[in-house]
């Protein structure tokens, strides 16, 4: 399995990775800004004109679901999923690598398994041709976010297998966090959800 770290000496790989990471970044930023605009227009339409956009809530929910799973690709790339590394940080080589290998293998297995089950469910919605109640969007598209999300997580974890085992993620996705100190690539980023 190859590793996509932005290591010194790996400039070509690095630029390819940057282009690859720009895609999910662009999608999530665009979608959340569209969602904010849609919410605002809906509020104005409802309270100023008494005529809300009926499909707005459904569309915003589907946007959020897609954003969550596309964003999870970046989180997985950085190895920044929330966890409690009480024991793993105290371990030394080679036990740390052994534990990280097991963790990563389980992560690969679970993400792959969920992707498979999710594929079956999404295909079922596609076959039934079920649509959302108000916006009449195909439900397979909404459910497909989980399928593609977990498939992408499986691929990303496989590509970054070595980083997960070593416990070092290089420059990561390069996302900066405001208000707080610069996020260290090898540490989980802070969340408001996490506080």
């Amino acid at each position, binding site marked *: 399995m190859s590793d996509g770290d932005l290591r010194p000496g790996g400039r070509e790989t690095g630029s390819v990775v940057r282009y690859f990471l720009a895609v999910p970044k662009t999608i999530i930023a665009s979608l959340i800004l569209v969602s904010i605009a849609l919410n605002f227009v809906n509020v104005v339409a409802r309270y100023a004109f008494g005529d809300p956009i009926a499909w707005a809530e459904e569309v915003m929910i589907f946007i959020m679901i897609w954003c969550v799973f596309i964003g999870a690709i970046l989180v997985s790339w950085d190895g920044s999923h929330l966890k409690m590394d009480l024991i793993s940080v105290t371990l030394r080589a080679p036990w740390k690598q052994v534990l990280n290998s097991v963790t990563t293998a389980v992560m690969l297995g679970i993400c792959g398994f969920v992707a498979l*089950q999710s594929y079956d469910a999404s295909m079922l919605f596609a076959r039934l041709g079920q649509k959302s109640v108000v916006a009449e969007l195909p439900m397979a598209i909404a459910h497909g976010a989980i399928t593609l999300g977990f498939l992408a997580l499986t691929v990303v974890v496989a590509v970054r297998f070595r980083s997960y085992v070593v416990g070092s993620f290089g420059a990561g996705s390069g996302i900066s966090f405001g208000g707080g100190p610069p996020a260290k690539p090898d540490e989980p980023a802070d969340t*408001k959800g996490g506080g």
Partner: protein
Amino acid sequence: MAWIMTVLPIVLLLLGFPIFIILLATATVLLVGFMNVPLTQLHLVMFGSIDKFALLSVPFFIFAGDLMGRGGLSKRLVEWVLSIMGRTQGSLALTAVGANTVFGAISGSSAAAVAAIGQLLYGPLREKGYDERFTSGLLTSSGAIALIIPPSIIMILYGYSAEQSITHLFIAGILPGMFIALLMGAYIYVFAARRGIREGEKFSWRRLGRTTRAAAWALGAPVIVLGGMYAGIVSPTEAAGIACVYAIVITRYVYRDISWKGIWDVAISSMYLTSQVLIIVAAAGVFSWLLTVSGVPQSLVQFIESLEVEPWMVLVVINLLLLAVGCLLDPGSAILVLTPLLAPIAKAIGVDLVHFGIIMTVNLSIGMFTPPFGINIFVAQAVFRTPLSVLYPGLAPFIGVNILALVVITYVPQLSLVLTRFVQ
């Protein structure tokens, strides 16, 4: 089956597995090995867990808070609070608590509050004679108030998990948050008085007017956004969306603190943080569903009832558990994993679930600055460069003050619930 649901997550948690993988791995083991249901249920329950309009307020509030936090808003807030304090004993340290409380009402981010307010006040506090231990302890702990003062992502997650009104939870957090600030203020006042520290400029209405004008747009955010919600005009999600537009307008066009590129970066980082949290929401939905169908919460309630202990004793145990969990786990994950187990117990012993949400939030906010793994400690370490050997003892009195506040908040439900009566 029940032991798998208990032991497996704990083992995987201790081994450092990502939280969402722990929840999904446990669910997979149970579905494959012990239950006779279609495996596609895993997907369906996950989808159903995040297919909720209320959850949309999470990315919106994160975006608005992050955007406000990046500009020069914190500086304006600090100057505003400082102008109110005048030459009160310990005014600069009191400003830290006051600014964090107001910052929490605008950004809602605890770690961001520590970084933003801490960066501004650490140097001046040290210059005025506060020692490193007290200064770092104060700035690290006072940021946690932001979790309790609305808007609070933790409360949104609790409201979602326990099926409680987010508006009620938000308004229930106001007095407890202010109470904690008041207790911390009292401790600071005594500390400064004993050491004879008196700093700051004499109070002047002119100065207050000037700083209020400078901070007015920032101070207007909670009034406009949360006011509409409390008045029952808009839903929490709509209020969060309005907060985003308000934040864009004031940071980009009024204060001119941030470029469109900056707003774009905030959009990326806020969705990144949202993904970290909501993927756990999706996985926790499956775990919660399995808990319900296997009757674990009901068994726990029956067990507690069979012990015939007083409700206050149960609350002591729950508080101790939450304080311990808060030291190790981030508040969002803790809320999502523990609420399905603890809320039925709280309900069974007669605790209002809105009040219980505040108890959980306060407990977990204390965990934010409690060694060894409080997130604010790491932020403070990075921002102030204070060694842990100095920071840990500096935190001790503030942990004590917050635990005292927790006791009052736990056993005086009116403190949390009184304002909820006025909400539509």
